[in-house]
């Protein structure tokens, strides 16, 4: 199958997955004890039946479940995610704004993590069992073992508390332009980078070790190619394949990391929006933001798979 056909098939599959995800979210929300209106109103619900009725009407709960779901879906297709109860505003623009903030956090972290981990992985693989390799192994073990909120708190203690170089919370920063974003983003991006770095480095190291054993790499070395050219032109190209898969697998882990990191640094991204929706029991916002984040994850996975197929012409599903 050619690449275009593969991509088209994956896009079709993506649509089906998104439908299934929206159904799952909607289904889980139906499992609420009582109903959404009672959840939102809490103790008030028992006292005033009228408010409860009004809230049910407002949420469209009087309709059967499949109608509610289809109505919601029809809205989403038109770009209308409904209205947030806690913020009393349309959800679509909020999601777009928060997505922008989250990407400003996630993209630099991802680029840094991938770049650094390739360098570290290659260094560790070429000096296998040396001091540097062991140091990198210890570093990655620490990286996979430290939760994002612990690392974030440590960085806050050192850089905001003791050294006073950077703010402990994004809400404390004033100003605009590059200095503003540098102050806001440095610690959160550093936290997120270390969290993702460790896994990718581990994979790059082991796949590079495998590749360096292959005959074609030995041939390249023996024909007198410069070491750097062997490593980065010949070995890394094949060594990268498992790494791409791990990066894709780690999108999910990283998205979780984004939620935590945003919470630690009071950063107003999608993750803190989800937590806000949970805290406020704002169900329309929860449904929309959950769906949005899960879709972003699926799209990211799809991109990684396509990249994998482009990098590795032998693989077509």
């Amino acid at each position, binding site marked *: 199958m050619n690449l275009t056909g593969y991509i088209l098939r994956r896009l079709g599959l993506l649509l089906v*997955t998104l439908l*299934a*995800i929206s159904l*799952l*979210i909607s289904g*889980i*929300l139906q*499992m*609420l004890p009582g109903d959404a209106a009672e959840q939102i109103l809490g103790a008030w619900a028992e006292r005033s039946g009228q408010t409860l009725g009004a809230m049910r009407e407002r949420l469209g709960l009087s309709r059967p479940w499949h109608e509610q779901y289809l109505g919601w879906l029809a809205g989403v297709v038109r770009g209308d995610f409904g209205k947030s109860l806690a913020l009393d505003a349309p959800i679509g623009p909020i999601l777009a704004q928060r997505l922008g903030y989250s990407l400003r956090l996630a993209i630099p972290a991802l680029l840094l993590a991938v770049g650094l981990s390739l360098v570290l992985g290659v260094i560790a693989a070429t000096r296998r069992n040396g001091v540097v390799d062991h140091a990198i192994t210890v570093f990655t*073990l*620490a990286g*996979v*073992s*430290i*939760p*994002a*909120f*612990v690392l974030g*708190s*440590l960085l*806050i*203690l050192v850089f*905001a*508390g*003791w050294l006073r170089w950077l703010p402990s919370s994004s809400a404390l920063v004033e100003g605009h332009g590059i200095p503003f974003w540098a102050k806001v983003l440095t610690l959160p991006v550093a936290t997120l980078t270390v969290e993702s770095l460790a896994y990718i480095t581990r994979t790059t190291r082991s796949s590079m070790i495998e590749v360096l054993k292959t005959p074609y790499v030995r041939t390249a070395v023996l024909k007198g190619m410069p070491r750097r050219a062997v490593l980065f032109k010949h070995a890394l190209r094949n060594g990268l394949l498992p790494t791409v898969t791990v990066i894709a697998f780690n*999108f*999910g*882990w990283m*998205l*979780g990391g984004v*939620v*935590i990191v945003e*919470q630690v640094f009071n950063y107003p991204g999608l993750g803190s929006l*989800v*937590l806000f*929706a*949970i805290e406020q029991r704002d169900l329309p916002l*929860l449904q929309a933001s*959950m769906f949005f*984040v*899960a879709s972003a*994850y*699926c799209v990211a*996975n799809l991109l990684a798979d396509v990249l994998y197929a482009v990098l590795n012409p032998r693989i077509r599903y």
Partner: protein
Amino acid sequence: MADGVLVAGTDVVAVPLRAPRHWPLTLLVGGGVLGVFALMALVGPWVVPYDVEAFHRQAALKPPSASFWFGTDRYGRDVFSRVVVGARTTMAMAVSGTLLGLTAGLLIGLASGYRGGRLDEALMRLMDIFMSFPSLLLALLVVAILGGNVVNAVLSIGIVFMPRVARVVRSATLGLRHAPFVEAAQVRGERTGYILFREILPNLWPPIIVEGCIRMSYAVLLSVSLSYLGLGAQPPAPDWGLTVSKERAFLVQAPWVVLFPAGAIVTLVVGVNLLGDGLREWLMARKSVDE
């Protein structure tokens, strides 16, 4: 990694669980760390020097000393006692969440891999949908609906793990479906339950144990993260994740209040990771021999 023990062809036998000649160092260190934390969780409340909720107001926010080994928090509660007893909620959540996920995943994986066909297809697509959620988000969704507490956190960890375990078990079961001893049992007319649990399951223990250990380290990270977000253990439990979040205002003034529970979390996860590496080395050793 699950494919490691499943040697294709006729020599599929139960991998003997006998003691290795050289115990991997990682296994010993990891097992030791986990043992210490398990002990803390089991007997903690009866051996700590202070009641975890006892206020010593005249000694609030004191640094570590001979009477308060890890210092005290803003109410003058003993941080050492709280860290020791705090092992309970995290260990309970991580262990039960892992067991729940393993059990559910095991049953689904066995059914899917052994029966095959439409059932397999349906179950695996369902698992795919669960896996198309980032794990923390799925856990958050479950806890958000059911309410944040330890039991629901366990449930959410189980649900997050179920599809991943199911995949591993399914692929291992697929490899054994036509093994001679399974076909022999079918010819003898054994019941499906007997074949699944007495013939196939014993061969699955090594990959399940290794998978369980990998899951366990994620489970610790997930449960402390849920508690940190206020959706796991609830106050006044001396839970580590909860403490790191509740006491963050005192991070600079009294770092010990946060640093000791944070250190406990990292030590536990490092221990579980080392144990996982060691177990893999021991149980999956056949793989490297075969290669």
